């Protein structure tokens, strides 16, 4: 039933005409073969997304845990910024579409409350849990001594590039760079 009573007594000819027009308002049919193509694309894309979810899953991270690289970073405000171009930039090689945990170790002489850490990822490198995001920011506090930040990286393209981590605290900031190279060989193939 079409709830015609909603017209509440003023369901005159004009309302009837509008209803008739609405009822006959056409939907253009799908193009020939559109459904078949759409189903095929859905299967391909669905499988690709399932694969990516698997890569990002805990299983993937667990596999990667044994492959962690360690990058030590000193948080000393009164020394030259190691993020400058002339400074040595540590590097890590990760395999395409294989998660790899990089442990950034921040060594701080003093506790740093309410610090902000921003990670800028190069194009084609993603952080597990943040698919498609190039910039991720955490509000955090560092204790005096060594502070560990594990980042599980996944290369989704072979380009690689530099990861930039920027730590800000009390109007001061330090930037740290990590050169990421991407190998298209599976782990252990070399």
């Amino acid at each position: 039933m079409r709830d015609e009573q909603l017209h509440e007594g003023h369901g005159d000819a004009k309302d009837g005409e509008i209803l008739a027009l609405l009822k006959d308002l056409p939907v253009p049919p799908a193009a020939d073969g559109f459904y078949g193509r759409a189903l095929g694309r859905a299967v391909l894309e669905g499988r690709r997304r399932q694969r990516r979810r698997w890569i990002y899953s805990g299983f993937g991270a667990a596999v990667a845990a044994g492959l962690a690289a360690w990058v030590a970073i000193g948080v000393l405000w009164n020394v030259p910024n190691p993020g400058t171009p002339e400074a040595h930039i540590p590097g890590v090689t990760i395999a395409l579409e294989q998660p790899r945990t990089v442990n950034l170790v921040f060594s701080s002489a003093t506790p740093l409350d309410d610090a902000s850490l921003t990670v800028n990822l190069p194009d084609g490198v993603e952080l597990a849990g943040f698919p498609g995001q190039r910039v991720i920011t955490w509000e955090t506090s560092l204790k005096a001594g060594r502070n560990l930040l594990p980042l599980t990286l996944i290369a989704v393209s072979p380009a690689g590039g530099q990861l930039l981590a920027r730590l800000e605290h009390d109007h001061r900031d330090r930037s740290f760079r990590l050169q990421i190279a991407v190998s298209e060989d599976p782990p252990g193939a070399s």
Partner: protein
Amino acid sequence: MSRADDRLIFERLLQPHLDRLYRLAWRLAGQKAEAEDLFQELLVKLFGKLDQLAAIEEPGPWLGRVMYNLFIDERRRFARQRLHTVGEGALSGDGLAGLPGPDDPAAEQDLAEKRERLGNALEQLSDEHRIVVLLHDAEGYKLNEIRDLTGTPVGTLKSRLHRARARLRDILESDGTFF
């Protein structure tokens, strides 16, 4: 389940619902490209829910709900371009009286113009009003079916439908469709 099997099962489960889902995508998105994107994205999402889909005895309402939720979640992506395409002098002033027969070219032209004006009037409604009037009056969904699709109480839907129809009439009267 092998990869070939899951594709076959996916297609077999969805085939009976494709026309209805495509029409729903059109009604929600309002334009071909956006409707096709919405339809495609729904299928991708459903492939990831194949086990769930296979377990549902009558998947029609559930499929519609998944599409509606997808549309709402990504409304901006699937939003219609609110372009108004009425040309200068397009208004014939004939009113909506006398719907045409198929063999009358002048009447067909008149109907096409009225549909265009109705389409433009629909574009001026809010999404909530447009969707309820299209699903109810154009697609023939019952209010409880729209409630199941959108999660909106029937009382609210009745109110929206009433206001949407009144607004449509106001627009069509003010643009010269009605005298």
